């Protein structure tokens, strides 16, 4: 069955290998160049954006930005493009997997041989799905590494919906899920092009729902709650994982953590939302006086955050959910094939 499956789906798998390989090459080259440029920045004691202005930091900084060009010119767009890849796999490998057989009538040959059709379809799903998952894992790891290389200080937030999907775990899970969705749609619809369209629509809906809500819902579960202090923030230590304050300040959690929300408590345990009107006097003050004002009113600032160490736990949860859904869809495709009659 290995030979058969490989021989029948060789073209689709090679096509995917070319697509992933081309993207991986671009990411790999720019990533390595950025890493090297960054290493020389660090050696010279230069920051990425800021001083010391002397001693040629400027040229090193521009060398760093050139190293990632043109991929770094619009990282948000790049993240979207990379996040589409699992969907492409589902559309071009998953959907035709069974639909083409059913459409062309070759299933009448395949299912009347001594080997059972169940074995035939399970082998296809496991071998092709397994290969794609492995490739997706490798590619996701590369993409995650690249994002850190491109953006080590500023926008580097693995917790954001786009970046959260670009790791070995989630990218592999999404690749398998999209493939299984395509295979199931193909078995059900029995025609290649409509199955591809249905796969595109359902993967887009699922990925959209995850990026928009589900991911954030997941990582808001059971945060650590801790006292915090206000920081004045320069534009350069802005972090998407922090929570910004009305006055332009910001509350930052421990390194690489994700701050979910902040609030104040008074001396008698009453709570005040950060944006409540009773806090307005605070936001009109400059930073040193803010601390004094808070102390005089016996107010404490609290944050709820997810520590860095939980990142891979949440990754595993999303990965496991994707895997489970993919297995269910695969089983449903097998069921449809077994039941298909006439």
């Amino acid at each position, binding site marked *: 069955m290995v*030979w*058969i499956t490989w021989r029948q789906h060789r073209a689709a798998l090679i096509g995917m290998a070319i697509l992933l390989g081309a993207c991986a090459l671009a990411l790999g080259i720019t990533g390595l160049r950025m890493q090297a440029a960054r290493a020389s920045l660090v050696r010279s004691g230069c920051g990425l954006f800021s001083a010391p202005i002397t001693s040629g930091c400027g040229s090193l900084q521009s060398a760093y930005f050139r190293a990632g060009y043109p991929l770094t010119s619009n990282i948000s767009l790049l993240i979207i493009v990379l996040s589409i890849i699992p969907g492409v796999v589902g559309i071009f490998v998953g959907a035709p997997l069974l639909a083409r057989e059913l459409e062309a009538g070759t299933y009448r040959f395949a299912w*009347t*041989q*001594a*080997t059972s059709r169940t074995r035939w379809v399970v082998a296809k799903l496991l071998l092709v799905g397994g290969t794609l998952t492995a490739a997706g894992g490798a590619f996701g790891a590369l993409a995650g590494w690249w994002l850190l290389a491109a953006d080590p200080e500023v926008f580097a937030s693995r917790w954001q919906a786009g970046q959260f999907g670009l790791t070995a775990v989630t990218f592999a899970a999404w690749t398998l899920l999209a493939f299984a969705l395509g295979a199931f749609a193909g078995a059900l619809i029995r025609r290649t092009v409509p199955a591809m369209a249905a796969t595109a629509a359902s993967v887009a809906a699922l990925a959209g729902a995850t990026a928009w809500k589900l991911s954030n819902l997941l990582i808001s579960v059971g945060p650590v709650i801790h006292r915090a202090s206000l920081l004045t923030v320069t534009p350069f230590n802005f972090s998407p994982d922090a929570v910004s304050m009305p006055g332009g300040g910001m509350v930052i959690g421990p390194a690489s953590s994700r701050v979910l929300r902040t609030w104040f408590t008074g001396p008698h345990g009453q709570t005040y939302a950060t944006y409540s009107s009773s806090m307005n006097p605070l936001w009109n003050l400059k930073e040193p006086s803010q601390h004094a004002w808070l102390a005089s009113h016996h107010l404490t600032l609290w944050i709820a955050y997810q520590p860095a160490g939980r990142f891979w736990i949440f990754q595993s949860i999303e990965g496991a959910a994707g895997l489970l859904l993919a297995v269910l869809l695969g089983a449903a495709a097998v069921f449809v094939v077994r039941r298909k*009659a*006439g």
Partner: protein
Amino acid sequence: MNAVEAAGLSKRFRRTWALRDCTLTVPAGHVVALVGPNGAGKTTLLNLMVGLTAPTTGSVTVLGGEQAGSAAARSAIAFVAQDAPLYGNLSVADTLHLARNLNLRWDQRRATGRLAELGIPLNRKVGKLSGGQQAQLALTLAVARLPELIILDEPLARLDPLARHDFMASLMAAVAEDGLSVLFSSHVVAELERVADYLIVLSRGQMQMSGTVDDLIAGHCVLTGPAAEADIYSERLPVVHIRRAGVQAHLLVRMNGHAEPVPPGWTAHPVDLEELVLAYLREPGASALPGPARLPGPAAQSDTGVAMLS
């Protein structure tokens, strides 16, 4: 052993019945032609036999009681579906490799030998072969599986007359060599007697006639006489079909096991197979199925069954 046995077999697709209450027995060792017009239910019946379709009611078993589509049935039956669907983007050699991997029994030397005889190159893509070559390749794949029964759905439909002849010759050679049973469907009625020795006629989803060609021919005759008297005899005799040609009429008569006395002024001729099949197909209401057979055991001791025959 019976190659195929069906009892009360029916198949409904949504609201239309493709096959209705089909009961049949095909003994092994025959070349069986399943004949009927387009839409008669031939493909449905064959798909039921190979397990590609599940029956709505009734049951079908093959090769002496194996469930149609079961592992044992699949490994002993080779099926060539209509238009011989194969993977167009695979080479002939890869197609052989594929079939070998999907089967436990496989005679590679026989497959390559046949293809060499037919002049089908192994490195050619299947999609680039002619229709006749694709049909021959499909037959080669079926024969190389060393089956007990080959089922072919409209194997001749796509072929030109020469390719038809070659295809049937190859099939008959395989039958002679291996002694296997063959069941093929066809809407082409001509030249059937040269290949088939058993006939099933299906019309509008129902069985019309089934039996060995010899029995069917011996069981019918054509009476030719004055057209004016045709109606008298058509009521007295089991007439399947009346063909009027001017002053003369030809009555195709079924003889229920005993020769009818030829009326004065009429002559009797033996019927040929094509004429017989066409007559039945023109009269979908007529049927000549094996009547209820006498059961062994005490329950069947009386001869009342004979009365039911007439």
